[in-house]
């Protein structure tokens, strides 16, 4: 029996197990029979087992370069390092659906294992929904696009992996995102199951909290890794193009961020329940929109014009689950009205509500930009394009408001706040931020440096001040030194201080984005050996060009020495490579950028064009100075750290209503 048969068999068994799970779980949910619930658990775990076998088979086929499989011959060749042979799995459309579905099966099995966490009344509902989602994914990779499809004629060598994807970031970016999508589907299943069974809010909020944080963190980090890849690998000097594919990853992140704030209000004050439910449902739908867009449902210039057979099915899945979820909300509308008391807008819950509204507005704006051209074309036949100025002008200011707002929330208490208690912190932080802005102005920073200094420093100082006050209280009360007290504070309320760290991360990212968008400098020159060009404060001299050939590519490697104010600071070696397999197909050579990074700015050097001829060594060099970009990646570190700290906190059953201010 060949690899293809084993994999195919495992997938079909997983598919059957998923169908059995849906049916048995459905009946189990209806009858609450313990026996049926046990069978459901076993069958859900067996889906994961068969799925894992299928995935292992696919990975094995990649590692052994089994070219009898289409998925292998289409994405790898014999020269590809083994680690990238793994990323070739999700370079394939069907392969990526396989990976995604497999992660959902693992998470479902985890829930089936931890049965004591969930009541018998709700467990079969959750598993039924999760199994139904898996039926969809398994049907996609079996009947719509067969992962284990065999090549009709023998193939001796594969096509090879697109050189752009031969990068550590691309090894990590897709799986991290799929992990987050899978976590979001767990949250969705829990929410829907809770709605069906009328589970009390405090219970489901406790269940979904950590899954949500996990999904939120992986989604944010996954997007940032994508940005990093785009910046370092794609060769256009930017990290965000408002491309439909990027937008697709951003929208659910806005929504899940809003959802986190919403359930935080639920935990503390038992409010905003309707917001939470709707946000969870739409976060899930927007994660499904991602493959719809990436698989060609909406044309995306940056990511190529590829089409797969999945989009119509994905669209159907979105519409069905959306209609079902909203219908369920409608049926439960009486329950949802219960206990929804009004609250003061000048309070932390009021501020969180405002945050939710802003995040939803952002999502709507990005959605309009992403789908409007497509809708206009469908209805009027006119094709239009929306360029990035739309997003920059609309989403940019809203995001700045949001960042500034992060400084307001910590100042407000739950329930009611009097302006008095917040006044001193507010004024102090605002004055400090203005002071920084003045300093920035004096040392010669431009308009956007000043604006971003105010917008970013204000929330930053509020957070520092809050932290300092808590530490001072501990210092005075328990005689701990300040450093120890700050850490102890973090430990005593991980959701809150983890959140603060995340906000610091967002502030760093915002600062990096604003400054690098407005103050990036770019210079293009065609140079002969020995000639120089100037970009920003830097002088670049083109010293030498080396031609080299190996099994997969012809490389041209330039040696460029860099000096600043007459002082030599180093050499960089940008490359421009002609890949035998890919360059003819794509009509393109692939550049390896050379970067010199300092906390203040990145110097980017591209060997944009060479003649690939020993005789003519003239080269077109593009050089850029991008300020503060590294702050974006550092912000990502804070996001991960803060997210992990918040995640490490586990709500106890008893402590549900304890106020955690």
């Amino acid at each position, binding site marked *: 029996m060949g690899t293809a048969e084993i994999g195919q068999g495992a997938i079909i068994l997983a598919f059957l197990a998923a169908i059995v799970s849906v049916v048995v779980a459905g009946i189990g949910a209806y009858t609450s029979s313990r026996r049926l619930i046990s069978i459901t658990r076993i069958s859900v775990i067996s889906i994961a087992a068969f799925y894992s076998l299928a995935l292992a088979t696919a990975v094995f086929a990649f590692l052994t370069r089994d070219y009898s499989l289409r998925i292998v011959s289409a994405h790898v060749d014999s020269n590809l390092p083994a680690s990238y042979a793994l990323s070739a799995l999700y370079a394939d459309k069907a392969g990526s659906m396989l990976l995604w579905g497999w992660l959902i099966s693992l998470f479902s099995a985890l829930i089936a294992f931890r049965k004591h966490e969930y009541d018998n009344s709700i467990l079969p509902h959750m598993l039924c929904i999760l199994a139904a989602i898996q039926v969809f994914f398994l049907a996609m990779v079996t009947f719509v696009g067969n992962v284990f499809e065999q090549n009709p004629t023998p193939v001796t060598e594969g096509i090879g992996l697109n050189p752009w994807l031969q990068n550590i970031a691309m090894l990590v970016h897709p799986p991290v995102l799929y992990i987050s999508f899978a976590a979001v589907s767990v949250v969705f299943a829990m929410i829907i199951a809770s709605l069906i069974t009328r589970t009390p809010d405090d219970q489901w909020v406790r269940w979904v909290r950590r899954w949500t944080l996990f999904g939120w963190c992986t989604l944010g980090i996954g997007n940032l890794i994508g940005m990093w890849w785009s910046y370092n690998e794609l060769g256009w000097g930017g990290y965000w193009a408002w491309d439909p594919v990027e937008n697709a990853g951003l929208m659910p992140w806005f929504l899940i961020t809003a959802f986190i704030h919403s359930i935080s209000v639920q935990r503390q004050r038992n409010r905003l329940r309707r917001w939470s439910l709707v946000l969870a449902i739409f976060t899930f739908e927007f994660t499904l929109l991602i493959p719809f867009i990436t698989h060609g449902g909406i044309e995306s210039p940056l990511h190529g014009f590829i089409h797969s057979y999945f989009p119509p099915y994905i669209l159907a899945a979105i519409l069905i689950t959306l209609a079902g979820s909203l219908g369920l909300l409608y049926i439960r509308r009486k329950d949802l009205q219960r206990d929804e008391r009004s609250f003061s807008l000048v309070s932390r819950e009021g501020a969180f509500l405002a945050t939710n509204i802003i995040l939803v507005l952002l999502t709507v704006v990005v959605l309009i930009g992403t789908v409007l051209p497509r809708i206009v074309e469908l209805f009027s036949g006119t094709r*239009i394009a929306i360029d990035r100025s739309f997003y920059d002008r609309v989403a940019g200011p809203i995001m700045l408001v949001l960042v500034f707002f992060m400084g307001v929330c910590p100042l407000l208490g739950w329930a009611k706040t009097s302006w008095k208690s917040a006044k001193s912190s507010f004024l102090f932080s605002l004055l400090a931020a203005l002071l920084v802005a003045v300093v920035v102005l004096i040392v010669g920073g431009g308009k956007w440096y000043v604006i971003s200094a105010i917008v970013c420093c204000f929330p930053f100082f509020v957070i520092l001040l809050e932290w300092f006050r808590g530490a001072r209280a501990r210092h005075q009360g328990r005689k701990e030194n300040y450093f120890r007290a700050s850490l102890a504070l973090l430990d005593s309320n991980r959701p809150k201080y983890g959140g603060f760290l995340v906000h610091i991360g967002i502030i760093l990212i915002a600062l990096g984005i604003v400054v690098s968008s407005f103050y990036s400098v770019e210079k293009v020159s065609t140079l002969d050996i020995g000639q120089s060009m100037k970009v920003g404060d830097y002088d670049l001299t083109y010293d030498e060009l080396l031609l080299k050939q190996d099994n997969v590519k012809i490389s041209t490697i330039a040696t460029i020495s860099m000096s600043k104010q007459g002082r030599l600071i180093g050499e960089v070696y940008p490359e421009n490579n002609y890949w035998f397999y890919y360059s003819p197909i794509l009509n393109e050579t692939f550049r390896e950028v050379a970067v010199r990074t300092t906390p203040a700015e990145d110097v980017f050097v591209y060997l944009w064009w060479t003649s690939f001829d020993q005789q003519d060594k003239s080269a077109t060099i593009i050089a850029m100075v991008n300020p503060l970009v590294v702050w974006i990646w550092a912000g990502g570190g804070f996001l991960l750290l803060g997210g992990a700290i918040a995640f490490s906190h586990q709500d106890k059953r008893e402590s549900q209503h304890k106020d955690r201010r």
Partner: protein
Amino acid sequence: MAVGLLVYASLGSAVSYYLTVSELLDKGSELYGERVRVAGKVANNSIEWDADTLELGFVITEGGEDLLVVYEGARPSGLKEDSNVLVEGEYRSDNTFQASTIILKCPSKYEPEE
């Protein structure tokens, strides 16, 4: 509401028509000075590239019609005869196209992760 206004106001200037070469030439003078995106194929022997002045010129063709595109900046490495391109920029009254961006369409064999 403010956001709605912002969306409306910004859409106006950010939207551009997306046409093929023959569609552009059909509309002709009514598009002079407008921001448009035009799709076409690079014509044979039409690429002229001056590496020192960074001036690039080429003809794109579609539906039997030709359009001269001029561009200032680095030559996109994938720009070859017969490749599909999408140019974004302004259609000028001398019937040439001043491109600000050149996007190369990838053949269908190209399957990147995203």
